[in-house]
């Protein structure tokens, strides 16, 4: 019961600290907006492919036409590019000139004679179509060669509909976060690292104000005191996190996927880790200034290696390798995989890493408190 009283007191005190709340709630929201806007061009999914329209004429080769249609169906499914057949070559050329289509493709009997006409206004779109068309031609040539040398295998190859004309993971906008989506996640996990200051000041204020000793003069066990403080700090942090998530989801329309519950469970483990880290540092380092310097030194490194500022893939191979030491790297990756791939393979690892770090710092706090009191 005393644990709950201490927790409730901690919650009340922290919620009254408007400076801390401003930092923990407004700061990430502002950063999501600013960084989301500033880095919008750096994230691949900002290219909208859904408006690309291509016209083509089928040549005399029925085999080529069937293969090409299979190709267009696959591309249409993956990238929402629209292919329309026309029998009128002149109309196709005119539509290109008028800018109604991004490209016009002429299929002849021989795939090596496929022609593509592009409108300069849609240079990127047309180049994309051209590059995919090249892949198609290479593939078609290979199939034709097999048909000549080993016709028995042809049926098997042709029945393979999953022809990889495009690297889906690199281009599919539905599976990549936009800058706003990215920073909604990374700024939240970043600011939660600063919840360690809540854990730190929660213990330091009890030490400096002698209220911790006063509590322990009463019928309160040290573990009740410690758990009450840590859980109180976590509760406040989770309220702050929930506000940031709800705001970014409902107002900024950031993508948090369809499984917020699992994401929030991961956030709880991060809050536990950071609050415990703050408490542990408060016990370990007597000087308040030195302790804060340590926290303010560690947090940016953990955040950087966790991809909190920019995606780690953009920071070079060496950083990507080192980044495995950052719990935030595991956490952020796990969250992004849940949102964009419904992939839960990293959830357990990320949660266990956070819980292990929390366990270390809770143990340190318990040992120090046992030795010295609070």
């Amino acid at each position, binding site marked *: *019961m*005393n644990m709950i*009283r201490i927790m409730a*007191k901690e919650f*009340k*005190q922290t919620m*009254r*600290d408007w400076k801390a709340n401003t930092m923990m709630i407004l700061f990430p929201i502002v950063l999501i907006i600013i960084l989301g806007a500033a880095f919008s061009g750096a994230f691949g999914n900002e290219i909208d492919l859904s408006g690309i329209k291509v016209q083509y004429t089928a040549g005399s080769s029925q085999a080529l036409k069937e293969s090409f249609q299979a190709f267009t169906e696959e591309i249409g499914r993956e990238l929402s590019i629209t292919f329309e057949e026309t029998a009128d070559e002149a109309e196709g050329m005119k539509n290109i000139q008028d800018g109604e289509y991004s490209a016009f493709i002429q299929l002849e009997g021989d795939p090596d004679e496929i022609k593509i006409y592009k409108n300069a206004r849609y240079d990127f779109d047309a180049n994309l179509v051209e590059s995919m068309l090249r892949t198609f031609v290479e593939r078609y040539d290979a199939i034709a060669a097999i048909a000549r040398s080993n016709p028995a295998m042809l049926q098997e190859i042709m029945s393979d509909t999953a022809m990889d004309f495009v690297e889906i993971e690199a281009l599919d906008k539905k599976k990549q976060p936009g800058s706003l989506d990215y920073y909604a996640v990374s700024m939240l996990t970043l600011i939660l690292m600063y919840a360690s200051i809540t854990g730190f000041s929660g213990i330091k204020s009890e030490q400096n*104000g*002698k*209220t911790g*000793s*006063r*509590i*322990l*003069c*009463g*019928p*309160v*066990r040290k573990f009740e005191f410690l758990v009450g403080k840590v859980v109180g700090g976590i509760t406040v942090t989770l309220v702050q996190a929930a506000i940031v998530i709800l705001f970014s989801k409902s107002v900024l329309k950031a993508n948090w996927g369809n499984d917020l519950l699992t994401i929030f469970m991961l956030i709880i483990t991060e809050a536990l880790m950071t609050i415990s880290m703050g408490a542990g540092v408060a016990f370990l380092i007597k000087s308040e200034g030195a302790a804060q310097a340590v926290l303010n030194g560690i947090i940016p490194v953990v955040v950087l290696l966790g991809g909190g500022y920019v995606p780690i893939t953009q920071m070079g191979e060496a950083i990507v390798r080192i980044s495995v030491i950052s719990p935030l790297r595991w956490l952020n990756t796990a969250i992004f995989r849940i949102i964009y791939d419904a992939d839960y393979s990293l959830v357990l690892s990320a949660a266990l890493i956070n819980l292990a770090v929390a366990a270390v710092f809770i143990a340190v706090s318990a040992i120090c408190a046992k030795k010295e*009191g609070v």
Partner: protein
Amino acid sequence: MSYESDDFPYYRQAITFFYNGAMKGVLWMHIVKIEEVTKNFGELTAVDRMSLQIEEGEIFGLLGPNGAGKSTVINMITGLFRMDKGDIFVLDKSVNKDPMFTKRNIGIVPQDIAIYEDLTSLENVKFFAGLYGLRGKKLSAAAEEALEFTGLSDQAKAFPKTFSGGMKRRLNIACAIAHKPKIIIMDEPTVGIDPQSRNHILQSVKKLNQSGSTIIYTSHYMEEVEEICTRIAIMDHGKVIAQGTKEELKALITDTNVVWVTIEDSVSRIEESKIKEIPGVIHLDITDSTIKITSAREVKNLGKIIQYFIGSGISIKSVESKIPDLETVFLSLTGRRLRD
């Protein structure tokens, strides 16, 4: 204040009595008994084989300079510090074996003001009293009563950051007494406050004692201890060097009182034999125009001495009486002043 005895099933003598018209209690051997307790901090021995007994209903003063070991003793009684040797018994229960029992029966007023500046006065008192198991309406009533007692009821919803030092000290006390503890420990509760607040606190201590609480009061202000304490232990270098009532302590260093009478007339008019006839007078010493009269300490004869001079028509210029105080006792026992 009223008390419930259900929490204290352990007693030596089942003598039931009514305490303060409301309390059904038991008689303890000693409410606090310290037995050969030692506490070391590294190389420093803060408390050195200290023994002490405190009886129920006392205002017991622990007097000593800074660093004498008073706060360490308090922290061991409350279970905050573990003792290296010896044991302390509170209500006949070992603090080493059952610290929670001790903690439930003690209210501590720490030397430092230990309150939350971002909680209101009422929230502060309710939080600390709540740790002792009070709930709901009982808790609210007890907190309001404690604020009333310390003169802060009109500040119940105010935040302590706006309070004066004296008000904070009073709130510090309110947080310790709301759960109506059997023993209240006050560790230097008047440090750094104005005389008015100090007076208020000293009166509060007396009232708490009258309402049934045993008080352990530490201070290095000897005049406070002298004013309110029924028994006193003087500590120095982690040891109790003397203990007893004020009179017993003073008797340790002298059994006489001295009066200096300076007269305007010639000392030739003094009749030494007449003065020596005054009850209690032991010795007479005349120097220039001053007569030093030494009397037995237990005899109050100052009125008769003055009456002699007036009756003999000798004009008195000044009278100075020196009765030893606790400061003198401490100085005499330790060779240094309390506030050194």
